[in-house]
């Protein structure tokens, strides 16, 4: 099984990296949006390999669909930009941006790997020893959804409730924003159309 596992991991990771790079480098913003879907789905694949089926599907539901639709709508809202080709211009500021991004990336990499190490030391999740047979059985038959549910309503009740407040704030923000736009609409003068 290890071979298959590794095969899957590298295949998905390959797709993910390609998709992520295309999001950044593709000339048209709509293409970027499409490759973003692929990237999100690949991330979901990685989650599955990590035994996190619920998170994987949430990833598809929220990111691959919800966020993507928001992105596409945002593209539509910006009108003509969607058709423009966006090439990266090699100006000094681009190099500067690359430098900053590089430093940031290295920092993250360093933190993450270190963090993993410490996590692996502390918890059993990342330990090399196999989980108990009971855990495996639960995972196989019920997935992680129930486990997450129990955790949410015992250990993480407060964050869960705070989350609803956060979502409430998001609704309010969205409504206020939309109202503002609607009130500020200037009545566009009707244009005379020339006959063709």
């Amino acid at each position, binding site marked *: 099984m290890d071979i298959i596992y590794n095969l899957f991991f590298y295949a998905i990771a390959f797709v993910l990296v390609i998709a992520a790079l295309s999001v950044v480098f593709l000339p048209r913003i709509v293409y970027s949006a499409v490759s973003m879907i692929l990237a999100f789905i690949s991330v979901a694949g990685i989650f599955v390999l990590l035994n996190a089926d619920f998170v994987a599907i949430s990833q598809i539901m929220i990111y691959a669909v919800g966020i993507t639709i928001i992105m596409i709508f945002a593209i539509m809202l910006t009108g003509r930009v*969607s058709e423009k080709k966006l090439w990266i211009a090699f100006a000094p500021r681009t190099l500067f941006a690359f430098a900053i991004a590089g430093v940031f990336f290295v920092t993250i990499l360093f933190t993450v790997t270190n963090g993993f190490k410490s996590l692996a030391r502390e918890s059993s999740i990342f330990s090399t020893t196999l989980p108990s047979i009971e855990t495996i059985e639960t995972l196989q038959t*019920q*997935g992680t*959804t129930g486990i997450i549910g129990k955790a949410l309503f015992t250990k993480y009740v407060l964050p869960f409730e705070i989350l609803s407040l956060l979502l409430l704030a998001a609704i309010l923000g969205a409504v206020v924003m939309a109202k503002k736009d609607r009130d500020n609409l200037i009545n566009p003068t009707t244009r005379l159309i020339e006959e063709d």
Partner: protein
Amino acid sequence: MHDIYIEIFNKLGIPTVLAEITWPVIPFIFVAILLILVVIFLVLMERKVLAWLTVRKGPNRVGPFGFFQTIADAIKLLCKEDIMSKDTNKILFTLAPMIVFAPIMIIYGLMPFTEKFVAINLAAGLFLVFALSSITTVGIVLAGWASNNKYSLLGGMRSAAQAISYEIPLVIAVLSIAVLAGTLNLSDIVIAQAGGFSDGAFFSWNVFSWNIIPAFIGFVVFFICSIAEVNRIPFDLPEAESELVSGYNTEYSGMKFALFFLAEYAAMFIMSVLIVTLFLGGYLSPFSDYLSVTLFQNIIHNQNILYIFMHIEQGFWLIAKTYFVIFIIIWIRATLPRLRADQLMSFAWKFLLPLSLVNLTIVAVFKYFSTLMNG
């Protein structure tokens, strides 16, 4: 099936790993054949039923009762020139029908058609069904955008707005099922609906433990939303032919159009299967036992044959219930005019969403007390 397949490979001396990797081909072929057969029959059925409802004969030229009409249509679409207008975005224009079609096909794999006929049996299957079905929305928006046609774009945007608005009450209605069954595995949801509510001869019928009884409001919400999700009248605004000519697929022709068409009908079928699975007991017989088993158990004593009979009957019940649901959907199509875009949206947000939340609360309270009573 799986075991037999692996065994054959082992006998041929091919490594098990290879057998495991190639195994998914078999269920996929089954699912693909099922999908095509279902759509062929469904299109014919829709045309026939609509014809009967509107005092016509319907297709009756190709084959007996016009039975091969759909096949003829499919061949025609296959051999049709694929016209792509100059201003389309060719890559997305080709990709969009695939994005719309593929998720629907995957959902076919997730559905329990009988006790054993589940190609992909996932613990979180129900959740994945909705994640997948909402991906089609992206495909439709892309189709509308790539066509560079004003009607397509309007249709695509409408479709996206409609699909995302109806997705919410749909998912919340499904939550009540998850509460009742305590699982997201579709097979387990079906099994949880067996048994009736007491041991009596009549009350032990499966009908009495179908989810439709505690979650009736949820059923109504789910039914309406699934009609909206598959863009049927009265929610067929994305392709309202009197307004937007043909909506997002105005520019499509040939096989690309056929994929949209196929996806639409396949989605209609699978949504009905989902309704049946979630609310109407799936493949379970409405009675306490399978008819064929009770009928033949005194004659045939071979357990395996009885088992096969049971599976056939399960498939029969599922298909029968599904086509009943589909018949109602077609009936609705023949009866109602279509809604306006703003009415459609307010219907979803101001009526269905509160209703689905009410349903969820009712079901949660019901479940709480029923567990309390059962100990």
